[in-house]
């Protein structure tokens, strides 16, 4: 056992979907577990923080960390695991780009607590209780991790070696990544362990997109019955496949749903949203200012659309608020 490579899995601000991606390895997981020694996997196995602290620095071959960093606990664990690991892998959109939790960057901590614990219609909280980081109770002071104002990607907190994109990542990518890491034949640091072409490359609908596509309006999926063969963008749907890294094999587009961009940008792009925006705006047909505005009304939530998974990783990182 002792010569087996130590591997850790950890989750921060995420939904747990990435854990599913690991479970999705199905029987392959046996091969993985045969090859490695899992030293941390909170979702499945009972290890404690002290177990990790006991491992010498660099004693873990690889940590697969999913989820964004938005609390003191997540930041501490990220630092701890970084120290203990030779290789740090950001697993999934949240860890790589901020993910869905990253949209919290349109607000700050107080606004979020206000909405979640007081403002939301389904909340019953007559005393207006909100989470406290510490609470004095009979001489004890239990503490809770503190929620930050801003959600960060993993690499904004610690040094990251590799990224596995996706919300959730395709099981195959996880498997390939594990195999690559175990092989010792490591790609350059910073590599995203997925193809570096946009999704269209693997989308079966690509050939149905007209060479010169110009759109007169944008439609939302509930407004039309999408043709199951034809390019979704050509049907007016907001498909972000052209701007999004491939690797998923077109799971959504095969399911007749447009790509929402969870695999993030290719390596040549600094701001996913900027490129997603240009992919759509560039092919609008209208020329007149009011006509253009009319077409753009079909994109009611531009930030939520273009930065659905990547707001913390974007150039602006978050919404600016009054000082």
């Amino acid at each position: 056992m002792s010569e087996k490579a130590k591997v850790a899995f950890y989750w921060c601000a995420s939904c747990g979907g990435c854990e599913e991606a690991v479970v999705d390895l199905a029987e392959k997981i046996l091969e993985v577990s045969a090859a490695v020694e899992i030293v941390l996997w909170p979702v499945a196995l009972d290890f404690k923080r002290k177990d990790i602290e006991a491992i010498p620095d660099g004693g873990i071959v690889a940590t697969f960390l999913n989820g964004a960093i938005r609390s003191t606990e997540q930041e501490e664990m990220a630092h701890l695991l970084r120290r203990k690991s030779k290789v740090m892998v950001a697993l999934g959109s949240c860890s790589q780009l901020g993910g869905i939790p990253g949209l919290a960057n349109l607000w700050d901590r107080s606004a979020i607590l206000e909405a979640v614990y007081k403002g939301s219609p389904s909340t019953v909280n007559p005393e207006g209780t909100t989470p406290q980081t510490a609470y004095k109770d009979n001489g004890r002071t239990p503490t809770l991790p503190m929620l930050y104002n801003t959600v960060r990607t993993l690499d904004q907190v610690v040094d990251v070696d590799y990224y596995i994109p996706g919300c959730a990542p395709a099981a195959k990518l996880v498997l390939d990544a594990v195999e690559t890491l175990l092989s010792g034949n490591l790609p350059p640091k910073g590599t995203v362990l997925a193809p570096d072409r946009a999704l269209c490359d693997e989308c079966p609908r690509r050939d149905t997109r007209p060479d010169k596509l110009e759109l007169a309006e944008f439609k939302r999926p509930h407004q039309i019955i999408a043709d199951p063969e034809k390019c979704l963008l050509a049907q007016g749907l907001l498909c972000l496949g052209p701007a999004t890294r491939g690797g998923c094999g077109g799971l959504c587009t095969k399911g007749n749903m447009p790509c929402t961009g969870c695999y993030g940008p290719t390596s040549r792009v600094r701001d996913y949203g900027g490129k997603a925006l240009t992919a759509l705006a560039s092919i609008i047909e209208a020329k007149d200012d009011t006509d253009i505005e009319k077409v753009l009304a079909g994109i009611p939530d531009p930030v939520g659309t273009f930065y659905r998974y990547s707001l913390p990783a974007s150039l602006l990182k978050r919404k600016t608020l009054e000082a």
Partner: protein
Amino acid sequence: MSERNGIVRIGVYVCHCGTNIAAIVDCKAVAEYAGGLYHVTVSRDYKYLCSDPGQELIRQDIRDHKLNRIVVASCSPHLHEHTFRTAAEGAGLNAFYVHMVNIREHNSWVHENREAATKKAQDMVRAAVRRVVFHQSLEKVRVPVHPDVLVVGGGIAGIHAALTLANAGKKVYLVERQPTIGGHMAMFDKTFPTLDCAACILTPKMSSVKAHPNITLWAHSDVTKVEGYVGNYKVEVARRPRYINEDLCSGCLECIEACVYKEPKFIDEFNMGLGKRKPIYIPFPQAVPQMPLIDIDTCIQFKSGKCKKTCVQACGDRHAIDFSQKEEIRNIEVGTIIMATGFKAFDARRTPYYGYGTYPNVYTSLEVERLVNASGPTAGDVVLRDGRKPKTVGIIHCVGSRDEGTNRWCSRVCCMYSLKLAHLLKEHTDAEIFNFYIDIRTPGKGFEEFYQRLLSEGVHFIRGRVAEVTDWALDPTEENKLVLRVEDTLLGTVRRIPVDMVVLSVGIEPHEDAQDVRRLFNFGCGSEGFFLERHPKLAPVSTFTDGIFVAGCCQGPKDIPDTVAQAGAAAAEALALIDTGFVEQEPNTAYVIEDECSGCKTCVPMCPYSAVYFNADTKRAGIHQVLCKGCGTCVAACPSGSIKQHLFEDDQIFEEIEGVLTYA
């Protein structure tokens, strides 16, 4: 970056441009600042970098310090980018390692605060230093130049340019909108200051155009489409029907004689409506091509189909008259284009206070040109519209010129032609003549002498802008006269001058469709509508579109000598291109990194030149390098960052952005 581009050694050069830059920007401080930037090996300021010693300084530094990037902070790249690129090449450095920072036009000339201007210059230099790190060696693309030339407009400018080129052995297409070439000059009687007859010097040139084997003349035709780029323009010309078959017509003009209208009845455009013509007509006797045309608005055959067609009978066996003639489209390929579309005379109705159109005896200068012309509607007899002969004439200068209400510019010709018309009217009628002027401007060879001559001929000159031409009479001397009310600024009093005839010396304007025309050809216009030259002094006949040149009044008001000189210059520019045989294109083309392209096709509709295409076999986009004009629109559109543009790489621009915003 260093791995990709080797060891970067940058030389920064800050130009004083005499005091043009140095007076506002602290050039020494900028150079010192640049010297401290990463990768900068040498940094200097210098009085005139574009001078020979300035260029040599750069070349010497390249050799001595093994510089492989050059940043020149001086004037606009539109002025001297070529100079400094060539200098770098002289020292063996690829031209595209040079980048210019504009600290003159964009800085010292527009700012007043030395501190702010210097800071801005430092920001811009820092951006450039960061940018050039990412520059790469590039090769210029050579494109062959088609040897044929298109000349648009058959006035004196177009005629002279066409003949110059044709005489040099080049094939020329001359396209003219009117049924005849000759333009405005053909309407003039005499030319100032020599008073030689306009027709005598122009008509031989018109005939040579028709006779020249190298010139294809298409009158009564319009350019309808222009595609392509320098050296390779594809042009579509629509030849409007004259209803005369030009191959069959012998130019005998018997058809005109034979027309069922025995007397000319319709407004004669060439004579400014002072004469009459028939439905089948030739604009004027020396028109080229020497061939009639039919006006379908007045021809009975076209209006009712029930004409005796005496013209056809007169034409007889030649069968040249063809009522069914249709517009013909011709497609040609040329390498260069000369725009010589001329001007529009100011419409005197826009100055209603001068009574043109209200009082019949108010004439425009062009009408008077026809009136004094021996081949004009009155055979040179100056008879007013009411049948009288004028005993007094008032000539008002600057009508539609130098006027906030109409056009602000000087027409550059109305002083001289007003003097000429004063002389001719005096000669023809012995009338008393008053010139009303703002200033007399005679800055040409023999011009001032001509003015002195007029003074000695007893023509009156009253300095003042005429307020109005009116027919209200204060006393019997003004009965049945046109009264010019004017403040005589030399006497300091308001005067009323009663005259029989008023001549409005109208100014020069761009054609009404000048904007459409230059859009068709894709080059620039000034705000007033005259075609914009590339540089007012150093490239006066070039446009910002390579291979298209301008000559004559379409570029701005000018007289015949200047027009001819400019036409010659435009022809010479075209010849220079043709005889070089190729043009070197700025290698700022876009290119697809095929391996990275997903084949999403977003880029394909971006390109107006169809340079971007989708390869159905490889499922990747591609860009025809020869067709790409380097706008970069597809680059900005590519959602996966798989298209790049030479000289405007993403990395280079990002570095510039960060450079101007980073405080070192």
